């Protein structure tokens, strides 16, 4: 089956070049050169998070968020949802509009997904950092207690988003039914993702159930980092890493199986 083989470092160099080219292309096609252009990449999620935060502040009490400050709670929660949801949604049905690019031998299906994932994760990360900086500078938010732990939680969620994106991207390519189910799943997963609650606030048996949800661990870790001793966070790094490795492998396997696409034109 094998065609000519290249040494790994050459292959990697080509891969990086191709992903870079796809990134530039994606930015231009999505945002064009008009107005603020690619700045939308992070301004859009920023405004989103800011809007939701405002709503939460206005309706506070409904959530019974105990006595911790609600603004950072909304920011740390909602930005994580945006990251995994947008990453996966951008991968859904991502191949079809780019199908003809696969005629270039070095462009693979994985590259198409990775370019989109990098863009979404970079956008979500910039949005979180910029929004936090803004709110901290204006005094609406305190400085985080432990930035490194926050970064750990965020990296976990970015990794999770990558695996999820590959799985969703590959499955939506195979089945239109899955694309519809995926939309329903995102809405159902949204309130379960840990953005709206902390595990500590739940009844004991619900806590155990909540800790089966992978996103909950990442969000808990981020809040552990932000609030420090003010909250009691529940998360297991072992569980996070295990889930992420499994999802990434399943995702890569599914993408690898997504071949012969040009033949179906």
């Amino acid at each position, binding site marked *: 089956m094998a065609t000519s083989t290249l040494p790994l470092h050459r292959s990697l160099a080509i891969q990086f070049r191709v992903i*870079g080219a796809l990134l*530039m292309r994606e930015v231009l096609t999505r945002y064009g050169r008009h107005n603020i252009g690619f700045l939308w990449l992070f301004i859009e999620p920023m405004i989103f998070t800011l809007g939701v935060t405002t709503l939460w502040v206005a309706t506070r009490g409904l959530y019974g968020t105990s006595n911790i400050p609600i603004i950072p709670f909304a920011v740390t929660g909602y930005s994580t949802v945006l990251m995994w949801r947008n990453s996966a949604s951008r991968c859904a049905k991502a191949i079809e509009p780019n199908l003809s690019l696969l005629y270039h031998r070095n462009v693979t299906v994985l590259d198409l997904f990775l370019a989109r994932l990098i863009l979404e994760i970079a956008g979500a990360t910039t949005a979180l950092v910029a929004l936090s900086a803004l709110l901290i500078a204006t005094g609406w938010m305190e400085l985080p207690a432990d930035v490194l732990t926050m970064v750990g939680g965020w990296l976990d969620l970015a990794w999770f988003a990558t695996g999820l994106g590959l799985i969703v991207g590959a499955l939506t390519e195979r089945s239109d039914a899955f694309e519809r189910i995926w939309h329903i799943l995102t809405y159902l997963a949204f309130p379960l993702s840990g953005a709206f609650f902390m595990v500590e606030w739940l009844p004991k048996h619900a806590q155990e159930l909540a800790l089966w949800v992978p996103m909950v661990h990442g969000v808990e870790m981020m809040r552990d980092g932000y609030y420090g001793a003010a909250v009691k966070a529940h998360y297991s790094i072992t569980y996070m890493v295990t889930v992420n490795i499994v999802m990434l492998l399943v995702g890569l396997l599914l993408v690898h199986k997504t071949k012969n696409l040009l033949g179906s034109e």
Partner: protein
Amino acid sequence: MIKLTHMSKAYQTRQGRRQVLHDISLCIEPGQKVGILGRNGSGKSTLIRILGGAEQPSFGTVYRSMSVSWPLAFAGGFQGSLTGLDNLRFICRVYGADIDRAIPFVEEFTELGVYFREAVKTYSSGMRARLAFALSMAIEFDCYLIDEVLAVGDTRFHDKCRHELFEKRKDRSIILVSHIPNQIRAYCNVFYVLHEGRMERFDDVDKAYEYYSLQ
């Protein structure tokens, strides 16, 4: 050199597995001009994709020791909202080619003028064809895959294409796939007929054409 050894290709369809190419073995040497005749649906495009590496065979092997182009003048790869220049940049990035060196050639060849910096969706089909051809010529390959390219464009365009491909690059290999025998007669020196996924080799174009017409 490109070498196919007992290569077969099958696709999974709703009606079950469909064999598109059957046990093809062939060898393309540097500098050879190979013409492949085949009717619509004979498996030409699948073969081109496998030769170019856009697809993998189901059985058998593909060995490639020269660089092979994507199917030439293939206009489907354009993103309508990008300009001709953006599309050129993308191609150069993917293949690691020097963009600044490619720009003057493409501008000159395509004669797009100001449209070179306008969105491709505003182009006429002739303009698209010129851009597509120029993009493939902007990257140097050892072997060019041509899938019915000369079916589009006017005489002037054909002359320019011929000059770029068959005169300036006459040392390269060319694989020309067509259902028009005259094109193959004009440019090739090795002939194949592809019929229902099987390849038959001929050294003489008239014998190839005779076999082709009988199908």
